[in-house]
């Protein structure tokens, strides 16, 4: 069971990394608008040009 003394800290480091990544994504505005991007596919690219 002493492997846990190593695995758990490794897991925590991974979690910290994931949290950091998510914080970056929020700060980068990735979650600001969850509705409009889904509509963008209907936008005709040619019509815009």
């Amino acid at each position, binding site marked *: *069971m002493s492997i*846990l*003394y190593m695995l*758990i*800290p490794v*897991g*925590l480091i991974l*979690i910290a990394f*994931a*949290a950091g990544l*998510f*914080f970056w994504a*929020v*700060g980068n505005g990735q*979650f*600001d608008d969850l509705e409009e991007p889904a509509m963008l596919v209907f936008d005709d690219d040619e019509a815009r040009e």
Partner: protein
Amino acid sequence: MIALSCYHCGLPTHEGGPTVTVDGAQQPVCCSGCKAVYELIQDNGLDHYYRDRQQPPAETAADTRRVSARRFQADVHRNGDQAALEVYVEGMYCAACSSLVETTLLSIDGVERASIDPLNHRLNVSWYPARIELVDWLNAITGIGYRPRPVTVDGVSPARAEQRASLKRLLLASLGMMQVMMFAIGLYAGDAQGIDARMEYFFRLVSLAVTTPVVAYSAQPFFIGAVRGVAAGRPGMDLPVALAIGLAFFGSVYSTFTHGAEVWFDSVTMFVFFLTLGRHVELRARSRATEKADALRPQLPNTATVIRNEQQVDIPIAEVRTDDLLVLMPGDQAPVDGVLLEGSTSVDESVLNGESHPQTRSAGDEIPAGSINLDTCVQLRVLRTGDSTVLGGIRRLARSAQLGRPQMVQTADRIARLFISAILVLAIAVAIVWSQLDPSRAFVVTLTVLVVTCPCALALATPTAFAAVHSWLSSAGLLLKNADAVEALAKADRVVFDKTGTLTLGRPNIADVRVTDTTLPRDTALQIAAALERHSRHPLARAFADVDSALIAKQVRAVPGHGVEGHVNGQHWKLGTRELVSGESDIQRRSVCLGRDGKCLAEFTLADPLRADAHDVVRSLQRRGLAISLLSGDGEAAVRDAANALGVQDWQAGMTPADKLECIRDWQAAGEKVVMVGDGINDAPVISGADASIAPSHAADVAQTRADMIMLGHRLQPVATALTASRATLAIVRQNIAWAILYNALALPAAAAGMVPTWLAAIGMSASSLLVVMNSLRLSR
């Protein structure tokens, strides 16, 4: 020279400077700014401020809080020798604050314009950089105790920053909760099967490591809220929450290092996670409601093309004055309200009333700000500018309704606060009792009592429902002016309709002209009538708006309930009921008469079609068990036709506003709750007399109406929606409150008896408040 100090701000000043009169004595002030602020405070009856303040405002105030103008420079727009800037002002709580800031700024030489939007605390200032530096007027704001901030911090608005922070808190809490829960399962299994003491200590240390950032970051708003509440002497629902989190966390830390029997890290993280989730959902709902209100405030163009000295010039919108001639090209959006001078065009007024169909407008028609000209280049005479436009009125309404707190919410707030105090007392009592019974469990049980009780469900029950219904109503084309109306509408027994402009569109047309005197040509009769009606606000007057008339009416006077009279071509004409024109009584009132010298010379038959969905709406209201009445000032025949077409049995014609009011009083005396649907201006007393009222918007009147709700667009459907939504709101509020009471009544005794484990208390409490928020959100559609 004697050293004097300013009566208002305490800065040194000199003799012979400006003074203010305080209780009859002259007191020196340092500048006209302070003088203006003093007078403003005095005019509002707030001069006890000067007696109550402990000491004159420290003169350092302006120095230590000086703002750096550098942060604002990027946002400054330059326009010739003027500059404009939008800043966010921190520390404003009421309208008095905003007017203080505005007045202060406007009294500074070189500041051209300063206006504050109270909803989002944004201040717009135009000034002449040649006469005053940016930093000087920014410091004038700090000088009176407010703090200007750039609207964007690294390009992010404060509202968006709040949402991002909330999302981060939620994520950290959820990640932390999952990890700690995993370790907790290990610990619980260890309790059952036996665990190595070193391993247990390790698990607890790891849990502590994960819980610490959750408590420090995710739970921060609860601690801040609790401290703020205590400091203000009004402990809110954050206090028991913060106490519970704090006690559980530090109790666990203590237990970890003293190798105690239990730790509650899992409960702490779970508690924080669910609470943060509730807050996040609430924040999203609120910002969605604000977004809907913001949709009513489109960006108007910044410049307008006007004719000055027979030349077209582009000038800033602030310089457009009433009666200017405005040129509106196809595709242009009208920046101000105006009257179409000649020709006709079609306009898109969807911004104002959601009506997406282009509307045809001809000479004499009003074109409100925000509408888009679709067809031809036209000229407008400017009627109203800025905040006094129709659009400005709608915005103000939307804002004031959002800021207002209905009676029900205030009551709920008071009860929740009482409840919180009761919990704190109860928790202390439980602690004392258990320390006598079983000191080893006293801490756990007290903690559980604090965690399990849910003032949140009680405190959130009403406001969340009202916030949610707000967005439902606005998407249905209803502006809520007075939130108390929701309660009255939900309890309504009877709906009273006015006819003209309510059941009908109020856009009558002339169906027939009958000239009774051969000396008067048909066209002349029409033109005289049109000239007179141009001065009338009565809905029927619109019928004559299409008539091309070169005649001008003078000394026009409205005869309420009857018509108008005035001079045209030197002759005194009367237009309106037969009674007014010739003195004969006429119950039929089918036509409008034109005449002079007591003789009726021409008759106009007007037709005003019913709104397309009037029949369906009336039927659906009847099916819901509401009594429907039709009270109209129009002639009997017209009202009977409308009543028959709609299937309304209870109708009365030829009523004056006073008659209508009496009718409503009678119904109310019989114990009925009456909703009035009618014109908010002509029927103002009736509207105020009813328990709740809805007025259709005839664009120009939106801002002045006394009605509780205003419906936009050409359909009657919003009336039915308003009733549905109000009933639903009341039902949801009742469900929420019933749930909150039931939950607390069950959970509290169980927890006090020591029968609820801490983790279960955390789930119960959080789930209970989440349930309330979710239930309310059903209203926002």
